[in-house]
């Protein structure tokens, strides 16, 4: 404990350095002061496990992967150095249950919906996800096409509790009831065992599953964001009424304005182009 004052002096110097470097960081740094769960630290939560391409190798501390990179960029704009960011893990349930949170904000592809917004707070969206249809090569050989009429005849699966499910039910309206699973691993397992033909994911996840998890996975097509009634937008989740929301929004606005958010997206989610659009 003896070196504690030295350490805080060092952090102070880092923060001062950042403040000197950019004017906006100064405003944001001051903004977040005293509003975080642990003073001088920013506690960020993500899923357990966190999946590629959102977080690479389930190690958000490395800052690799789209969400890990966004988290560090937001932290930077808010005036937190890389070593002042702490990671915790949380499930979806933990994140939306009433009561105190153990994180300042949580990012694991939480889609912003009005119902969820009643219980927790969301930041401005940091990504608009197109929904994509994942199938195996056998279905394509059997004649599945990226057209609604063709999709109706497939046996569908989805991860229960994602916003993909309403899209399946309301937009595709399959002929038989979809089967539902706990997570992506179970959905792909059901595809492997031939129990379902197709599943709906956000595009980056679908691309990852097709390329890495399934031997013969194909992303059949994507629904453009305006096709779905409410486009799926990911937001940073915070406890209801968290005063930090203003600072987080400000940081995200700044990232959008100076083009760095687009740059991060291009770096980690570049494959998203080139998938046919569903007619």
């Amino acid at each position, binding site marked *: 404990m003896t070196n504690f004052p030295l350490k805080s002096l060092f952090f102070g110097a880092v923060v001062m350095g950042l403040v000197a470097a950019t004017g906006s960081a100064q405003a944001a740094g001051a903004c977040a002061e005293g509003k975080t769960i642990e003073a001088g630290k920013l506690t960020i939560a993500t899923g357990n496990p966190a999946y590629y391409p959102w977080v690479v190798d389930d190690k958000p501390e490395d800052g690799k992967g789209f969400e890990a990179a966004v988290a560090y960029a937001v932290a930077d704009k808010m005036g937190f150095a890389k070593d002042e960011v702490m990671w915790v893990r949380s499930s979806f349930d933990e994140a939306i249950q009433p009561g105190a949170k153990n994180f300042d904000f949580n990012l694991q592809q939480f889609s912003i919906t009005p*119902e969820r917004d009643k219980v927790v707070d969301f930041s401005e969206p940091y990504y608009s996800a197109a929904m994509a249809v994942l199938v195996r090569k056998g279905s394509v050989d059997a004649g599945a096409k990226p057209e609604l009429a063709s999709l109706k005849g497939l046996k569908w699966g989805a991860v229960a509790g994602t*916003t993909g499910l309403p899209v399946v039910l309301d937009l595709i309206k399959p002929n038989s009831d979809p089967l539902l699973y*706990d997570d992506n691993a179970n959905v792909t397992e059901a595809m492997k065992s031939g129990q379902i033909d197709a599943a709906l994911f956000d595009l980056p996840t679908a691309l990852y599953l097709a390329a890495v998890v399934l031997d013969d996975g194909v992303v059949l097509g994507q629904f453009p964001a305006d096709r779905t009634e409410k486009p799926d937008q990911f937001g940073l989740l915070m406890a209801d009424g968290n005063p930090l929301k203003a600072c987080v929004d400000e940081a995200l606005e700044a990232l959008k304005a100076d083009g760095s958010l687009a740059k991060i997206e291009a770096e980690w989610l570049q494959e998203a182009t080139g998938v046919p659009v569903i007619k």
Partner: protein
Amino acid sequence: MNRREKYEARQRRWSILIAAASTIATLAAIVILVPMAPGWSRVQQSFFSGEVFLKTLPKMLEAFLVDIAIFAWSTPLIAIVGLAAALARSTRSPGLFPLRVFGTIFVDVFRGVPVVLVIYLIGFGVPGLGLPRPWNSPYIWGTVALVLTYSAYVAEILRGGIDSVHPSQRAAGISLGLSESDVMRYIVLPQAVRRVVPANMNMLIALQKDVALLSFIGPVEILRQAGVYKSLLANFTPYVVAAVVFLAVTVPATRYTDYLMNRQNDARS
């Protein structure tokens, strides 16, 4: 009514009064004190929202039909497989030793492995071998997994019942000229099965709830439907709906089990 009867009647009225008063006091304490907790309004909104309750109830009841269907076709299968395993373990002939070993392994393995693992392994694994539709349906293989697990428990309960029939009865049967199998069928099993009815009722109640585990491999039954609503509405009330629906079925079943047990105890004493 003599003096003693009057006294006892008075005592009874008095104890009913005390029971009623203490029940009311306890309920009042809960009803008054819990809402005084600072977070009550948020908890109420998240877990006991009347609006969400009414909105989700119809679809939840529909999903509960899936539970009932799986339960209905699993129960007779469990009874058959469980009885077969119990009989396999209760054989005495030296030539049937492999059957006893198989019965023992079956019971040990399926009682020792978590139900969820069995469901995953059989529900995803067997169809993964390349079965065509509809033979790879999760309903079929999920049922197989449940039946195997529950048969193992039921087999042990039945074997306990079989062992509880005194050996002298078997000896008496044989000395009357009945074969081993006739002794089992006409003398031992009727008594054994009757003795373990309450224990098997407990298994039925447990099965009613474990049917929900099939949702892990796809079927949308009531608990899965509740999970979907929970995520979409960011509200836990659908789970309360599921609990209410389950209670509506399990409470009468439990009471009936108690009644059976009491009757059996009375008959024995």
